[in-house]
């Protein structure tokens, strides 16, 4: 086997030329689908992700309804052709786990008590995957929730930090993910720094872990700006939406 190229060069540049604390390019567009109550399309590096939101609507099946608040249910799904080896359609164990942790993250911000017996259904479709699809999906879904006018404390933003060649690196790309020594996806409520998703695998010292959390949180705040821009653009051009929904969104954004 030939020697693999190091993940960091002598100047601490990464194989795709990024600095260790540099995000891949991110683009977000809100309101891209017609049937869904809210939607967003996101490109993050080579990731292409669609998110759609339906609800609050009557929860099905009925025995799952919570008489005191809304359920927040996410379904994260990868298209069969989104990865280099075709993925069998339908949920697998990985996507079930990701759906669960994303559902839990959004349960924190949605004002669930306002909508008892309903569900807020979030659908994330990964159309093309590089690395970091759960962060990308969650970040897109957050915009879709706002686009749907779902009352929330704030948007949620997600970004991972990893470790490669002994250094912490923000937002690992595919090869960094495969060959790195750690991966830590995190999601945060930017205004309050409430951590609502946190997973980690690999090896990090206590000090590294703290630094990695800080790197992810700071990056989330950068991405937050892109999310809000997408929502502003959406409501600047649209006139079809009922006024009260716009106000809800504006209010949320001004509040920060």
């Amino acid at each position, binding site marked *: 086997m030939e020697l693999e190229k190091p993940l960091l060069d002598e100047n601490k540049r990464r194989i795709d030329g990024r600095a260790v604390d540099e995000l891949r390019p991110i683009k977000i567009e809100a309101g891209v689908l017609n049937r869904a109550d809210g939607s967003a399309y996101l490109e993050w590096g080579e990731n292409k992700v669609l998110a759609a939101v339906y609800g609050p609507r009557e929860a099905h099946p009925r025995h799952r309804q919570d008489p005191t608040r809304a359920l927040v249910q996410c379904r994260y799904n990868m298209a069969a*052709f989104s990865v280099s080896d*075709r993925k069998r359609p339908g949920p697998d164990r990985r996507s079930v786990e990701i759906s669960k942790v994303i559902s839990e993250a959004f349960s924190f911000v949605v004002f669930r008590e306002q909508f008892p017996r309903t569900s807020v259904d979030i659908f994330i479709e990964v159309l093309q995957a590089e690395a970091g699809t759960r962060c990308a999906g969650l970040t897109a879904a957050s915009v879709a929730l706002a686009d749907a006018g779902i009352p929330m404390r704030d948007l949620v933003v997600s970004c991972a930090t990893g470790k490669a060649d002994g250094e912490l690196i923000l937002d690992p790309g595919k090869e960094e993910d495969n060959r790195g020594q750690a991966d830590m996806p995190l999601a945060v409520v930017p205004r309050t720094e409430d951590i609502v998703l946190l997973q980690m695998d690999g090896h990090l010292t206590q000090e590294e872990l703290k630094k990695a959390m800080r790197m992810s949180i700071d990056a989330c705040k950068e991405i937050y700006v892109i999310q809000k821009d997408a929502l502003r653009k959406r409501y600047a051009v649209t006139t079809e939406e009922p006024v009260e929904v716009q106000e809800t969104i504006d209010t949320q954004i001004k509040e920060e």
Partner: protein
Amino acid sequence: MGGVIPELTRNHIHRLASAGKRADSRAPDEFRPLKIEKDFVKSAEGSARVHLGKTDVLVGIKMNQGEPYPDTPNKGVLITSAELIPMASPKFESGPPRENAIELARVVDRGIRETETVDMEKLCVEPGEKVWLMFLDLHILDYDGNLFDACSFGALGALTNTVVPASRFNGEDFKLEVEHYPVSITSVKIGSSIFQDPSLDEEMVADARLTVAIDENGNITAMQKGLSGSFTFDEVERVIELARIRGNEIRETIKG
């Protein structure tokens, strides 16, 4: 495709139809705006995203090597799947493919397989041992009617930009050749009117549906009648004649 439509909308569409008119002011044989983005997904061997009015589908092709069917030892294998993901419509539930998705996948599959759109013998690697498996996945993103045509256009579009990844198996990548361009044109009957390219509302009100695929030589290559109404002999004739005309126009858009 399942679902209920408000009585008011139903009556409105029927009333218009009795005068040969449509709710969106289209002519009876007029398609909605069609936009095909080829090579939308880099992780796929071929792909096309189709916007047909507000209907939005993404078709991707993945290829791998495997065993041929015993009765066609020197031919590649086509496997078509459709996912009516719940993102696309409040009526699509997650779960195993239902009869609508199965019918859709099978009609698109036959439209390619039976018409020799692609010469499947060129996808043979070692007769009886190893052939290319071609996975065609229909991913419905936004559902506003006429999935048969949108998916069929997407499948053809994806085939035109498919590169067989032979280099993964010590060969040389080569472009798939599309031999024929059968174009699927779907019409519905509402009362005594025939409308091409039904919108979702029209589909839900329609008595009967007829999909006709016609190739560049004017041959009919596939038909599929749906819904619980009937067609007369003359109506079938008329649907086919109109499909032939429209097909020539759309074929150029797909080749485009």
